[in-house]
């Protein structure tokens, strides 16, 4: 479980996160939605400890991220898997080596066991025959998928994915959504997904937090999203015609 308590973050003069509180439970796909520039990525990086927050608290279970000691921080990080918005693959390594890297670093398994695990993960994100390619040789969507494979290869307890679907075609997008949902439930991960893709929100979102200009504007489940009378959220959600139809039919 991850709990945020009045998290604030300023960069210089600009206040990017303006006091966000929420709780994210294991086994649930928690989605953070919001317009571009609303602070989703900053929130996610703050939660994993990459951006020290200006004030507030971030709890993993009962431990506050702010006063955790170095050893515990490292062992906590080993339980975190993260996909960065721009994938952040190691570009001196092949696809296979990228996914293999965490296994090599932190496990003592035999080489063939590790490779089996790597191939299993790559297959789950729908990548075959790319093992020996370098990140510069694959497409943006493929990079995303390698990033996801690398994030889940150690079966993390906390999974953070920043925009898994941007740059993916609808079919692959659904594949990735389903993968995220499946592994979250199977391994009882606490999963956080940043997205502005309403399709995947309606597909797999268990708990949705809507961020508007650095503030938590709305929070609830996906059914509530369709019936809410929160104006700002409605403007965001029903920007797509598909969902507008959906709502009209429902009403």
């Amino acid at each position: 479980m991850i709990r945020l308590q009045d998290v604030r973050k300023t960069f210089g003069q600009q206040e990017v996160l303006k006091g966000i509180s929420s709780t994210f439970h294991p086994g649930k796909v928690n989605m953070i939605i919001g317009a571009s520039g609303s602070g989703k990525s900053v929130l996610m990086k703050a939660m994993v400890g990459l951006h020290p927050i200006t004030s507030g608290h971030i709890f993993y279970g009962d431990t506050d991220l702010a006063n955790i000691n170095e050893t515990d921080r490292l062992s906590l990080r080993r339980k975190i898997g993260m996909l960065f918005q721009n994938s952040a693959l190691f570009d001196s390594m092949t696809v296979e080596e990228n996914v293999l890297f965490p296994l090599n670093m932190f496990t003592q398994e035999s080489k063939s066991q590790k490779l089996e695990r790597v191939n299993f993960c790559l297959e789950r994100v729908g990548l075959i025959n790319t093992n020996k390619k370098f990140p510069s040789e694959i497409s943006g969507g493929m990079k995303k998928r390698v990033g996801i494979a690398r994030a889940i290869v150690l079966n993390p307890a906390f999974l953070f994915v920043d925009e898994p679907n941007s740059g993916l075609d609808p079919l692959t997008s659904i594949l990735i959504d389903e993968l995220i949902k499946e592994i979250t439930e199977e391994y009882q991960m606490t999963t956080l997904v940043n997205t502005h893709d309403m399709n995947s929100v309606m597909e797999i979102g268990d708990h949705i937090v809507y961020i508007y200009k650095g503030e938590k504007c709305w929070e609830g489940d996906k059914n509530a999203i369709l019936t809410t009378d929160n104006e700002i959220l409605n403007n965001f959600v029903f920007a797509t015609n598909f969902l507008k139809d959906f709502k009209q039919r429902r009403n």
Partner: protein
Amino acid sequence: MLTGFFFHFGRYTLLLKSMWKRPENGAIYWQETMRQMVSLGVGSLVIVFIISVFMGAVTTVQTAYQLVSGFIPRSIIGSIVSDSSILELAPTITSLVLAGKIGSNMASEIGTMRVTEQIDALEIMGVNAPGYLLMPRIVSALIMVPLLIMLSTALCIGGGILAGHLSGIIESSVFIDGARSTFKAFNVGFAMSKAITYGFMISSISCYQGYYTEGGALEVGKSSTKAVVFSCILILLSDYVLAQLIL
């Protein structure tokens, strides 16, 4: 300016300190060190070869030009060229060139990793990023720079002999006799201590510049320029300091 110096010096020291953690997996660090040694050592061979041979050749011709008096034996040329190769030309000039090559390479490699969030990705995995990125690079520079400088010394003297022979200024045997007559093992030791110092400076400064790159591709370029400039200045500065202290 002064606060800037203390800021960078403090951050540099802390970065080097944070490198000293138990490696998560020794084998991977070892592999990475080997990879760096190959890229750094083999990658610099050609440039070291070219500059060393020419340095030796030019020094021979110029020394001969300056020694016009018939009273001075020609063998002096050999001793001057070999001594200055060992003491100054090979270690310092080669290091300056290596600062340009290795330094900019390290700074831009690490800088790119920083701005594309690869370093963040390492940290999230629980890898000690300074240890994993800096340690192999610094260790391999500490080993390879002295080796390259040894090679450079030999090539420099070889270049001198060759130029002397080809231009008819001095016979190879006379050159070598001259070189032998003033050879001191101490000089070689001094040159090696310079080499180790320079290797450490180039690698640590360049890694530092890369590690704290902020922004994008443009800033990566700036970091790598800064890495080269600061390494060169510090090499020359410490060249002087070491000469004062030890000679």
